[in-house]
């Protein structure tokens, strides 16, 4: 009764030989052409593979609601404000993304940003240091704090939650100490920092040129990659798909730029933030250091066994995080033209961490992207900005903030299939 069906499949070997090396497996469902691309995209979306992208849906919902509520929300003027409001905390959130990728946390970014603002103000205004010197001092202070955290973490194995909680308190104290009796120090409006943070915008021409350059660089790198992949016998992205994507990027960038340009334009500060996001995304995705960070976040023991110097990576990440926090503090101080006891206080910490998490970076390490800082902070600041256009008492404002936040994230998670079955988010 033994009736095997040996199907030697000799012919299928022939058929696949012509295919690129990475598409030869017959279980792969072909996704060629634009249609295939779309289908693959949808299935990746559903399986929760796209990290921060689905948050965009949440963001669109929020914008829709507020635009409906108040015309002013989508006005150019307000959107320029929104970019300005997002830059400082966004920069801090970028640092948080890094520590979250490791599976660690930094609760003290608020205090560090406040301390950095205090150092700048006291140095620059109080002691009359030059601006670059004062900025340098602030950033160095941030870096030193990060190094300290990293050493404490790697040396004693104390959870970063506790280390940075201690830092939150200690550096708040130091901030108050540095500010001294005056408490609140104004930074002159005509100083470089305040000008940079409040009143420096790209010219219209420059902004459009930038958009075009970005699109061209994208196309050039992708075409070059295609060339190399063909040479290596690997599959390539169809040129049509590339073209569609390039046009999408062009629209995605030029429409906002156009809208912003109807008011003051694209601010230097926001540009700096976006540039940092792009740079860190590159560093995370395309360098050995970034790969190590992801590896440690995924499985620290595996990373160690792969010969990665785990301690050095931890320290460097903490340094980056607190330096970015210090930079964020400077931007915030510049925008407010003041440093005071409340700088970096209230919910800077929570907003920065929330931005990273809402943007799609996992609290458990190894999953996330620099872009989640950008998207997350836009969600948070859109809610806060939108609500400030609506006439509400504090209780209602809190409740609606919570509700809208939840809505945005639920919309996001509805747009993918439940991640629960695949493990933690």
């Amino acid at each position, binding site marked *: *009764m*033994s*009736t*095997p069906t040996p199907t030697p499949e000799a012919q299928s070997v022939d058929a696949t030989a012509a295919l690129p090396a990475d598409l030869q497996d017959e*279980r792969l469902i072909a996704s060629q052409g634009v249609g295939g691309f779309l289908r693959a995209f949808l*299935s990746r979306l559903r399986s929760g593979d796209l990290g921060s992208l689905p948050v965009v849906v949440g963001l669109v919902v929020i914008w829709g609601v507020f635009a409906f509520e108040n015309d002013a929300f989508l006005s150019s003027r307000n959107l320029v404000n929104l970019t300005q409001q997002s830059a400082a905390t966004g920069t801090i959130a970028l640092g948080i993304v890094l520590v979250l990728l490791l599976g660690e946390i930094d609760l003290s970014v608020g205090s560090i940003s406040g301390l950095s603002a205090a150092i700048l103000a006291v140095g620059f205004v109080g002691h009359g240091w030059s601006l670059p010197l004062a900025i340098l001092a602030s950033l160095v202070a941030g870096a030193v704090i990060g190094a300290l955290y990293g050493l404490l973490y790697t040396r004693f194995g104390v959870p970063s939650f506790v280390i940075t909680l201690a830092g939150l308190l200690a550096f708040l104290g130091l901030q108050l100490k540095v500010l001294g009796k005056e408490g609140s120090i104004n930074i002159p409006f005509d100083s470089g920092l305040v000008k940079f943070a409040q009143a420096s915008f790209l010219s219209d021409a420059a902004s459009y040129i930038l958009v075009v350059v970005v699109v061209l660089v994208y196309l050039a790198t992708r075409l070059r990659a295609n060339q190399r992949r063909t040479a290596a016998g690997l599959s390539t992205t169809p040129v049509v798909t590339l073209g569609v994507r390039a046009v999408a990027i062009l629209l995605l960038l030029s429409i906002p730029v156009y809208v912003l340009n109807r008011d003051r334009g694209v601010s230097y500060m926001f540009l700096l933030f976006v540039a940092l996001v792009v740079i860190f995304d590159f560093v995370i995705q395309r360098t050995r250091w970034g790969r190590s960070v992801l590896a440690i976040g995924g499985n620290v023991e595996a990373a160690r066994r792969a010969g990665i110097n785990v301690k050095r990576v931890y320290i460097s990440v903490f340094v980056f995080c607190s330096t970015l926090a210090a930079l964020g503090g400077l931007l915030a101080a510049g925008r407010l033209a003041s440093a005071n006891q409340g700088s970096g206080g209230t919910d800077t910490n929570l907003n920065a961490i929330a931005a990273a998490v809402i943007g799609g970076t996992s609290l458990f390490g190894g999953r996330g992207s620099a872009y989640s800082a950008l998207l997350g902070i836009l969600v948070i600041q859109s809610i806060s900005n939108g609500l400030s256009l609506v006439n509400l008492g504090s209780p209602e404002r809190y409740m609606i903030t919570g509700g809208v936040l939840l809505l945005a994230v639920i919309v996001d998670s509805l747009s993918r299939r439940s991640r629960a079955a695949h493990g933690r988010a």
Partner: protein
Amino acid sequence: MTATLSPPTTAVLALTGISKRFGAVQALKDIDFDVHSGEVVALVGDNGAGKSTLVKTIAGVYTPDDGQMTFDGKAESVASPAEAQGLGIATVFQDLALCDNLDVVANLFLGRELYRGRALDEVTMEQESWRLLRQLSAKIPSVRIPVASLSGGQRQTVAIARSLLGAPKVVMLDEPTAALGVAQTAEVLNLVERLRENGLGVILISHNMSDVMAVADRVSVLRLGRNNGTFNVSQTTSQEIIAAITGATTNAVSQRAARRETHTAAPTATTEEQS
């Protein structure tokens, strides 16, 4: 074809047309499979052939995209592992699925802890654990250490011991002997035979052809996510099965065997050449 191979009783578990897709990968396509009471069916196939995916689909871990399952003659759709257990399907997963932070006893009895009054009956559970582990010749120094600190084989033994609790009708063992020592492997094979004698349906996944030939009644081959033949063990040879698995009659395995035979002439060589 499968029907003609099976014993005349109705199958305790039967699958028809099961498909499962992960992203761009079609892991299972139109799979038919069944097992009868008192029968050991080996499920074999190359790496990535879809064996574990099939097992997880039966166990309620994955929901199939397509296809039907009947259990004890009734059509069922299991939406969760709890439901599969409820039906009487016990599973040893290839990835073991143990809670590293819990100790051996807690893992063994997870989900079916014994009670004494209002508190867990740790004493009886510990005693029972030792009994089960001894039965499998496990070499575990203490059942009160977290399973994270066990060796690979010890972890596997714990996972197998789990499936002996309860009163299942079908037991699925996904590469149960992969990490086991020779003595433990022999005990597991004994166990499989005992389960068959007790009238359970057993699904055994293994890459070890001699184990398969030793205990299985039927062998079902998967290849790249599709059925690739069912063999009656008494009427086939390892070579035939390996050919179905790899999809070719000449392959690395037979080449190695051939090469080795011409090179060495040690008296033990023929017995040792089997994969």
